[in-house]
């Protein structure tokens, strides 16, 4: 009798152990298991650089284009910010990607930059804002082969609605107005290829 009891107890223990193993191996049903948006181009835990520079011929062909070069970089500081945000409970509006946008404007030797915090938006794009001067935003989407599309403004009901993002921290405090990247006719969409980090400096 004692042997039977012992055997039953052993079978029960094995079943509980097996159930625990199964529970531990099944991924949770929450989105925590889902890969981050644009994880191929902006891999979590790894720095990245995407850049585009317009040559003289391209600028000549688009006289209204103000942007001469544009880059999006994630450094160790950004990765630390992403880790910090990832530890929070995720709500709509919780940032997932940190990056620095750098833009050189035509006829201006200075490279202007904005620190970005990006949330997951609709249509597989990141919505990125600068905390220095809240209000502006850009959107970042993947375009395959780890390349990115940066858009300023967008089309709604068949009509383009322009927008902007601040490229410095002056906000309204700068004489002559803020420095912004705005969606002019030739400054709405930018295709950025993966690049070595030197291209982002």
């Amino acid at each position, binding site marked *: 009798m004692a042997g039977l009891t012992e055997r039953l107890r052993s079978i029960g223990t094995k079943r509980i152990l097996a159930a625990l193993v199964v529970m531990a191996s099944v991924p949770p049903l929450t989105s925590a298991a889902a890969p981050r948006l644009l994880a191929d181009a902006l891999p979590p835990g790894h720095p990245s650089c995407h850049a585009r520079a317009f040559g003289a011929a391209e600028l000549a062909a688009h006289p209204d284009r103000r942007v001469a070069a544009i880059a999006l970089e994630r450094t160790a500081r950004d990765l630390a910010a992403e880790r910090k945000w990832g530890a929070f409970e995720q709500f709509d509006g919780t940032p997932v990607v940190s990056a620095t946008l750098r833009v050189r404007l035509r006829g201006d030797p200075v490279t202007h930059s904005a620190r970005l915090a990006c*949330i997951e938006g609709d249509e597989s794009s990141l919505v990125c804002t600068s*905390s220095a001067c809240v209000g502006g935003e850009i959107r970042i989407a993947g375009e395959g082969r780890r390349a990115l599309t940066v858009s300023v403004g967008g089309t709604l009901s068949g009509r383009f609605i322009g927008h*902007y993002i601040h490229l410095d921290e002056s*906000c309204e*405090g700068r004489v002559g107005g803020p420095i912004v990247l705005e969606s002019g006719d030739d400054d709405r969409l930018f295709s950025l290829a993966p690049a070595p980090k030197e291209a982002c400096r």
Partner: protein
Amino acid sequence: MSAPARTLAFAAALMLPAARACAEPDVLFPPATVACYVGAEVTPAAAGVPLYRKPAVPVTAVRLERGYPQLADEEKQAPPTEGDRLINLRVIVTFADAGKHGAPKRYANGLYDLLRCEADVCDANNYKVERQADGTVLLRMTGGLYVGDGTYGDANRHLPDRHVYRLVASPMGSCR
């Protein structure tokens, strides 16, 4: 088609867009239309109006922006069922200590605030925007509004209940 009929048809074609424009509803924050209002505080001095606290710093400028992000958010909302409209607004606030001692330059409400609009009033439950006869709008706190500095999890400030701000319609560039 005879020449006079052709002329009439051409004239009608020319008039159609104008007629359509006239048919646009004359309402506060009409559908699919960008807007920017800029102004400052006009809270009447009265007993019992809560003061700015933690820190006790007043507001120097308020902007109401309805640009591409707000219109994009509105477009994905379900169509209203009771005839009223839902709009999204960005309330951008500058305090008197902006940029001093590391204080943020601007604060703003959340990205997804929705206001329910009638012809002359849009109501977010904790604040309202009211169109005035002179074309300005009043931003009226009816409970108060927390605004953040744009960095997740960091400092917030509060526009207290019963504070009022008068804002003037301005070019979109004024809201940048």
